[in-house]
């Protein structure tokens, strides 16, 4: 059974059909990439899955459960984590605090216990910290633990955001353009991490990406979208060979037809 199943998803903003009838399935342990030109509706699909936008029609099933009616803050505890295209970190906190915020769904204490800082809170904090340290080690963020986000280079912030998503301990991770703005070396790191997430952590990865070398390197299957509509689905090679996809990217007259 597939982990994530999106069926006939559509959202209209006013008269604009940002996403119009997109369907796809992501299997457990798979790396699935969504590609498409700017404004194709890729990020919008992410925002629909993480329930920031209300779909006009269609359904989203995760792990066999219909999540279309859930609230945005209910998604993380199901095991769906995400990153944002323009980095949405907590700028005035340290890297460590940011990663610890990713552990929110695992909190076991209420605010009264927190104010009194009962031994239970300390035990829970140790456990949160231990889990976060695993993420820090995995992403090699040791040097930045106590650094404020606001002063960090772009590339590091990008990695911290992936780290925060991993701290949730998700089954599915949504990466919104993980390589945008990164150098060739940094992009290569991201590629290795995605491989490791899948292989060592058993994660399923759904990503939106422009960098075709990254897509080719890591993804099992690719969905190409343009103008909110699906164009083609298959292996990276199949999709890139598809005439509709080539037309959408190169902008031949066929674009309008697609």
């Amino acid at each position, binding site marked *: 059974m597939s982990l994530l199943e999106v069926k006939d998803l559509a959202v209209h903003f006013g008269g604009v059909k940002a996403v119009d009838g997109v369907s796809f399935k992501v299997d457990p342990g798979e790396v699935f990439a969504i590609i498409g030109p700017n404004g194709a509706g890729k990020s919008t699909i992410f925002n629909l899955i993480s329930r920031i936008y209300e779909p006009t029609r269609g359904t989203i099933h995760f792990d066999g459960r219909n999540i279309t009616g859930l609230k945005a803050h209910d998604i*993380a505890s199901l095991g769906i984590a995400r990153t944002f295209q323009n980095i949405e970190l907590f700028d005035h906190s340290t890297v460590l605090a940011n990663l610890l915020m990713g552990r929110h769904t695992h909190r076991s204490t209420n605010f009264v216990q*927190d104010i009194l800082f009962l031994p239970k809170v300390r035990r829970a904090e140790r456990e949160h910290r231990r889990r976060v340290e695993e993420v820090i080690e995995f992403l090699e963020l040791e040097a930045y633990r106590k650094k404020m986000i606001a002063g960090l280079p772009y590339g590091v912030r990008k990695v911290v955001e992936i780290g925060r998503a991993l701290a949730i301990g998700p089954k599915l991770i949504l990466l919104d353009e993980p390589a945008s703005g990164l150098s060739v070396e940094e992009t290569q790191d991201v590629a290795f991490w995605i491989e490791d997430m899948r292989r060592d952590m058993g994660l399923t990865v759904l990503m939106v990406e422009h960098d075709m070398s990254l897509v080719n390197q890591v993804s099992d299957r690719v969905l190409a979208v343009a103008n909110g509509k699906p164009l083609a689905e298959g292996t990276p090679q199949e999709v890139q060979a598809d005439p509709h996809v080539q037309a959408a990217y190169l902008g031949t007259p066929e674009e309008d037809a697609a």
Partner: protein
Amino acid sequence: MRIVFKTSYDRDIDLHEHGWSRAKIAVLLGIMILLPFLVGEYYLAEATNTLIWALAGMGLMIAVGHTGQVSLGHAAFLSIGAYTDAALMNAGLPFLVAFPAAGLVAGLFGAVIAIPAVRMSGIYLAIATLAVFVIVEELVILLEPITGGVGGTMAPSITFFGISFDRYGALQNFYWLILGVVALVTWGYANLMRSPTGRSFLAVRDSEVSARALGINVTRTKALAFGLSSGVTGLAGALMGHYIGFFNYELFSIFISINLLLVVTIGGLGFIQGAFLGAILITGMPQLIAIMRDGLNASTGIDLGSIPGLDTMMFSVILILFIIFEPTGLYGRWLKIRTYFEIFPLARRDMFRRQKSYLKTERMK
């Protein structure tokens, strides 16, 4: 620069990173406890006032500094706290019941109004709190049987376990009582900020959309933060009532709200220490101005006392200067000075330069 070797996660979880900072707090607390033996009645009363303002400042800091909710109406919660405490005590309940109840009532009221208010962002919330303030002020006048209306009401003398904590009769005891309350609240606040609840406040402050993506219920978090904020402010209000003795609605004017904002902004937003520094400034300034005014009058014959509103004017100018030149407040300035000496001579001029950010529209929320 101090290097701390950490051998366990507890070193990061503890309130103090190293024994030295723990010792400093202990010394400070020791001096505060011994203060009644060090200064006279007048300055002890002033110190009491400062502690009450620090408590109120901490209350507002939770909302403004740590959750990013600006409130222009926190005097309303001072007022609710003061009247609840006085009314319950006048009805015969002991202080030990009336005081927590005052905090609870103010906190619940804050949380209840926060639930619709959290749907609003930034500026709208500030305005809504202003409206709530005006409504509470008028309600206080309307509810004459409880509040004494325009005439005002009396906060009775505090006595428990057979000990008097009267503001005038036993000022030392009254001071220690307030010191104890402030110390407890500070401890609880510091605990909050190192726990998941405090982190969720910061998350909501810095990015609502990613807070949601991490599973944080933004509405509930904001309501909780605002409730805690108004609860602590309510406690401060109850103590303020006892400090003043006899009071009416005029004690909790809009200017008190503004002064509270001044406390947290000048003190340093987002730092518990900032509430204390701000409180020292706001209660110390009138003293300082008075001394300067007398000195000026004696030496030059210029009588500044004849100019009404000079205090407020000077507060305002200081506030403007702080916002323009040191938006991180007194505590932020202190951190910079400390870092400068810790890493001396490695500090660079632009080390603390703020990142230029451009205004993003709040209509896109």
